């Protein structure tokens, strides 16, 4: 079990109804974590259009998770 902080942005934040939460998870990768939080962000496969960052560094969906990580879940970006 890993203890994390998860932060939701933009559409994900609106759907989750919260900015962030602390949780304990059995997920071992960012992708597993994302799937376990489908009730929050209401999104299936994030790969290709959603991004994840861990501790303010862009990460891959197969990145491992560690205690005290801050995981940022980004819906499709639209700058410019």
């Amino acid at each position, binding site marked *: 079990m890993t203890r994390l902080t998860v932060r939701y*942005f*933009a*559409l994900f934040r*609106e759907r989750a109804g919260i900015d962030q939460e602390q949780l304990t998870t059995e997920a071992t990768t960012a992708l597993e974590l994302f799937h376990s939080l489908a009730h929050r*962000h*209401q*999104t*299936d496969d*994030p790969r*290709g*259009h*959603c*991004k994840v*960052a861990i501790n*303010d*560094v*862009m990460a891959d969906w197969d990145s491992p998770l560690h205690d005290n990580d801050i995981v*940022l879940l*980004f*819906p*499709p*970006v*639209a*700058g*410019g």
Partner: protein
Amino acid sequence: MRRIDIFEQAIDPDALRRGLFNEAAGALVTFEGWIRNHNEGREVRALDYEVYTPLALSEGQRILDAVANDIPILAAHAVHRSGSLQLGGCAVWVGVVSAHRDEAFRACRAIIDQIKLDLPIWKKEYYVEGDSGWVNCERCASHGSHPGHAHT
């Protein structure tokens, strides 16, 4: 200079271009993104930009450094707005100076293309009809519709 900023207030393109002056420069190319009155067939009246600034700055700096390593330029500056913008407002400004014009054109284009793909920035459009929606990124649009996209 290779610099990216996130501005909460209006962008001043003239001040930014003057900041790039360099006696060895023969070419300045700038890109400005403006809030236009339509997007994907909807009439737009205003926008909100949400920016996760710590990563927008670090990703932006990575983009500028990568482009400057690839293309010989003298300086580059990129600025993106956060917060509310009205029609006609300047959402993003990119300026590049170089000795010759080819490099400035190529680098300016590469920087804005990467900014749109990589920076953690989200755009919520407010439509004339009264509803609103988060805008998908260009890469995602090429995937067709997906569960993460809905007008709310």
